[in-house]
């Protein structure tokens, strides 16, 4: 006889969600539902009939933590739709801006999950201090490169509105080197607390929260629409995905569920490592370790970009509106963020579709929770940065 457990709202993650668990007599989860309870805001509908320049800026407002990725994916979509080629330095700066955002978002999630692993006050305070220092540097990158830390206005269709000065480049380089040192420490810390948690709770790191869904990623640091076959992507309504027998849960899930080849796929840091590094860590707690490893990689990529960047180069392409459809893909901190834009010859949006990064992972979280004890349900959910 299975019992139903509801956790609402789920806490210490960035979005809004609800967990519905069917558990057996011993407390193990037989069936899990992870429902997205964020209200529908209708960005796709709002975009229709408006100029591309407006929409590219507006869609950044989808999220306050992860705005650079929406701005970037949208700009990429419009550029492909209208055949615009951003200058090399514009592309580099855009990547840099989004990576700054990735750095701060990744460690922010480490702050949110801290309570799952650490009890001692002093250890926690030290970690929080370190995390905030790293976040500050991540935000500084977005501030300088994007022109504003939240909803960076420099990201434009055609590239970036402004280049950075030579002195800003040097300053960014210095601060990112600081961030690297802190992050190395933080990476060690994350590995340590995750391993300690597994040991204390007698969990097998390789088996805990394992699921057998495929992984999807398009690029280690930026985003590549060539690697995303949209013909294999389908977005279904929750009622279609969960079926009539679970319509109560289905009706609570806001938004559509994207599937690749008809099944849910995992996106995010672990997927990027699986696809591009060929590793295969199946236990769900590894995501924490890979996320902090990816933050280190992001800092390294930032330093590389700063070396490559020509601070007196052109960053913004001039363009004329043209009819067409384009797909923009960007690897957000949480996973593959897809924007699909159709514009007419005047540059007015005729159709706009967004598959936000987190939405891919909702059904995957359910698979990861199923089979584990209900007391770990939220811990597993928080391995994914949703």
């Amino acid at each position, binding site marked *: 006889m299975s019992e139903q457990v509801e956790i609402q709202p789920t806490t210490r993650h960035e979005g809004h969600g609800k967990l519905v668990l069917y558990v057996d007599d011993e407390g193990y989860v037989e069936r899990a539902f992870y429902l997205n309870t964020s209200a529908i805001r209708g960005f796709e509908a709002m975009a229709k009939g408006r100029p591309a320049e407006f929409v590219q800026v507006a869609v950044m407002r989808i999220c306050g933590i992860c705005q650079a990725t929406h701005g970037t994916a949208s700009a990429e979509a419009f550029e492909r739709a209208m055949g615009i080629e951003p200058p090399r330095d514009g592309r580099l700066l855009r990547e840099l801006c989004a990576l700054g955002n990735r750095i701060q978002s990744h460690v922010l999630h480490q702050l949110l999950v801290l309570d799952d692993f650490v009890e001692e006050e002093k250890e926690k305070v030290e970690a929080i201090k370190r995390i905030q220092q790293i976040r500050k540097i991540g935000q500084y990158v977005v*501030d*300088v*490169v994007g*022109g*504003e*830390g939240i909803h960076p206005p*420099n990201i434009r269709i055609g590239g970036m509105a*402004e*280049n*950075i*000065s030579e*002195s*800003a*480049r040097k*300053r*960014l380089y210095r601060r990112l080197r600081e961030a690297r040192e802190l992050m190395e420490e933080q990476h060690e810390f994350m590995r340590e607390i995750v391993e300690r948690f597994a040991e204390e709770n007698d969990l097998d790191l390789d088996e805990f929260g394992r699921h057998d869904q495929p992984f999807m990623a398009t690029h280690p640091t930026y985003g590549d629409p060539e690697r995303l076959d949209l013909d294999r992507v389908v977005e279904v309504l929750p009622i279609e995905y969960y079926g009539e027998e679970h319509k109560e849960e289905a009706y609570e899930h806001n938004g559509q569920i994207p599937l690749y080849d008809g099944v849910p796929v995992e996106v995010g840091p672990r997927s990027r490592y699986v696809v591009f590094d060929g590793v295969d860590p199946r236990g769900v707690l590894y995501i924490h370790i890979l996320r902090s490893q990816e933050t280190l990689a992001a800092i390294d990529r930032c330093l590389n970009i700063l070396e490559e960047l020509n601070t007196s180069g052109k960053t913004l392409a001039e363009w004329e509106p043209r009819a067409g459809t384009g797909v923009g893909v960007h690897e957000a901190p949480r996973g593959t963020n897809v924007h699909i834009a159709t514009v007419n010859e005047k540059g007015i949006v005729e159709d706009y579709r967004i598959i936000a990064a987190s939405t891919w992972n909702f059904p995957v979280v359910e698979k990861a929770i199923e089979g584990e004890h209900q007391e770990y349900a939220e811990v597993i959910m928080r391995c994914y940065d949703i």
Partner: protein
Amino acid sequence: MSELKEIMVKGDEGLLGEHLGVFTARSTERRILRVTQDGGIVSSIMVYGLEEGKFDGVIAAVADPDDPEEPWKPRPVVITDPDEVLEAAGTKYTYCPNVSVLKEAVRSHGCERVAMVGTPCQVRAVRKAQLLPVGMRHVPDKIELLIGIICMENFPYEGLKTMVEQLCGVWMREVAKMDIGKGKFWVYTDDGEVKSIPIDETHPFEGEPCHVCTDYCAELSDLTAGSVGSPDGWSTVIVRTEKALELLEEMVEQGLLEVKSIEEVKPGLGLVEKLAQAKKNKNQKEIEERKELGLPEPGKVHEQL
């Protein structure tokens, strides 16, 4: 007590704004004096600040007198190299949106200690932004020094052009320097010609917002500089904050500034106070008239919303 503290005198704070003292000064460096309007105080401070690392960026107005389209039209720039400061030297009698690049200085230039020179209205705008940094996140604490310039009124570019080309009969691109003093607007050309018109004739070309401004000496700045009250080639300096005083003392000690008591020179502080009073009286009257017509009072618009 430092040399500066000894010679500083205090004026009427109701007219000059709160201050620690006033004195008159000029730069001792020939390269600066050659290009500046009066005593080269603003340029000297900027060069010194950048060279000594007190500022890592300064905002000033640069105009190209030989621009084929709009000669002498200033544009605001962020300067990080002391050698470039002198390109911005000299007064431009027209608007230059310096505040517009303040955020850019902090963002894409990555500056953390910015100095800005501006008219009283621009200084006020920056102080407001510091109080309530809407759209100016992370900017308020990066402002190291605000240098105000004494200002009676300003001219829109087209107005200035009309004054120079139609009233003085000189092409803008031939102008070497412009000046206001002794009741006249002066234009010096590249080949040594000097033209002038009485200041009364320039009034129609003044900017409309200047008529409701009662701030003559940039009362919210860290220090104010201007030619009024000092002899030719010297500048009157009003010091308002300890930070500014310290900087100026250092510069005097190192022999970069030559200073005198304002009481020793003609026309002296009295003229500054007289003109400040004139600006306040005239524009306060305009404000009262506008209020009578039911128009919003400048600076108080929010109270009526």
